């Protein structure tokens, strides 16, 4: 029985740190159920903080984050794979189920399933140290999928790998999203990645949302070298530059 994924709702969210620094300064966003939203922005714009608030790793100073009813699960993928080095791949992937109390045979089978779907079945008995960086990220993605999440949060998952591996991982992310249909939020500093993966690109700067743009190219038509695609990327980059400029303009003022 599949449940509907929830709306991921940010309601005038503020996150202030010691010293009065406002990493998130009044963000109101509503991510539609099952949608794929990319959040981009210059370093320090608060996108990662926003994601962590959605993940429950941090709490708001003001405002509310609503990730739907808590019966569904939230999965997070970080910049680094965060695999337990002494466990084999299959046991790493099964970890969330293990902590949820799923019996051994069942969680083992579920883990093998997602590894199979990711084309990693051959690596199931390997240790993380025996895998390349890219493969480890794919294992981390598989782990995020094993709980059939309703909300999927990705915090710059591809920033630590090379360009080619990034493209492979992007394909994997797309497949993952399609497999679980979760409401997905991707934080990235790669504009082309954002455009290729997401329905909607949100531009942040200085803790605020500066632009909110729906990607106008059909998914089927998104070829990285294609004219339409490049046009979208350039449009988003202009939005990004404007946001950064406006932000520094505010600083100067």
């Amino acid at each position, binding site marked *: 029985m599949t449940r509907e994924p929830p709306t991921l709702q940010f309601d005038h969210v503020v996150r202030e740190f010691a010293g009065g620094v406002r990493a998130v300064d009044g963000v109101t966003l509503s991510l539609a159920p099952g949608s794929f939203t990319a959040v981009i922005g210059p370093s320090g714009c608060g996108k990662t903080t926003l994601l962590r608030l959605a993940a429950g*790793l941090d709490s708001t100073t003001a405002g509310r984050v609503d990730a739907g009813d808590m019966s569904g699960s939230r999965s997070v993928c970080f910049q680094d794979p*965060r695999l*337990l080095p*002494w466990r084999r791949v299959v046991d790493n992937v099964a970890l969330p189920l293990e*902590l949820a109390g799923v019996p051994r045979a069942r969680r083992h089978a579920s883990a093998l399933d997602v590894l199979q779907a990711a084309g990693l079945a051959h690596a199931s008995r390997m*240790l*993380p*140290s025996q895998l390349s*960086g890219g493969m480890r990220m794919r294992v981390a993605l598989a782990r995020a999928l094993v709980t059939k999440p309703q909300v999927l949060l990705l915090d710059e998952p591809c920033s630590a790998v090379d360009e080619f591996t990034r493209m492979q991982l992007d394909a994997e992310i797309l497949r993952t999203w399609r497999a679980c249909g979760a409401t997905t939020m991707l934080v990235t500093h790669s504009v082309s990645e954002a455009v290729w993966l997401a329905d909607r690109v949100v531009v942040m700067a200085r803790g605020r949302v500066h632009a909110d743009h729906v990607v106008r190219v059909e998914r089927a038509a998104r070829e990285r070298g294609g004219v339409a695609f490049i046009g979208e990327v350039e449009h988003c980059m202009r939005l990004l530059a404007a946001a950064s400029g406006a932000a520094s303009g505010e600083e100067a003022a």
Partner: protein
Amino acid sequence: MNAPAAGVRAIAWPLLGVAIVLGTWQIGVMMSGVAPYLLPAPTAIARAMWESRDMLAAAMGRTALGAAVGFTCAAVAGILLGSVIALIPLLRRSLYPLATVLQMVPVVAVAPLLQLWVDNGLPMAILSAAIVALFPVLAATIDGQASVDPGLRELLKLYGASALRRWWKLDFPWSVPATVTGLRIAAGLAVIGAVVGEFVSGYGGTRAPLGIVIQAAMRDARTDLVFAAVALTTVVGFALFGAVSLVGWLLVRRWHASAVNESEDRR
């Protein structure tokens, strides 16, 4: 270079070093004519080892037993206590400084006191070995569990794991390499502790461990036997250290060393 040749090379150089030291020592003694009770030649020591081999072997067994049992007690106590202290921050703040005091008190000074509470012979050797070996294990365990990768910690918190489950599935396995390091240090110290305990209350006569053999030989001006017994004490230390190192290597070889290398590759 193939593996066997590398292995031979690894042993050959230290052996050569030892041979040079022994040779110089032998020649030096022979040429200077120094009295044997002040500095015996290596040949005299070897002869003493051979002539008293039965007595020395039995003594070595006793010292090894005291050190091994004391080490095991310290290892178990250190890991248990260290884990409890690492798990509860309040305990860490209050007990860890006390543990450092434990290390500062020299066992040589405390041993006569211990004698009042513990039986002579093997129990004393075990107790003083355990006391000396405890702190390295304790400190290493606490440090290992306190230095868990924060990213992994966060991951488990995210999955809703309780503090206890986090400890069992993450902190404890993570700390194994650090604990192993502490155990290796403790192994050598345990032998020293056992011998000190023997100095104070080891059995004499036919039940003598190496510590008593050393004392009796000193009294008898049999310096060659003193050296022989001291050398065997070192052997016991090496053996215990080697055994602990082997077990440690078996536990972590698949993931730890390569984990270190892997993080270097990624940079």
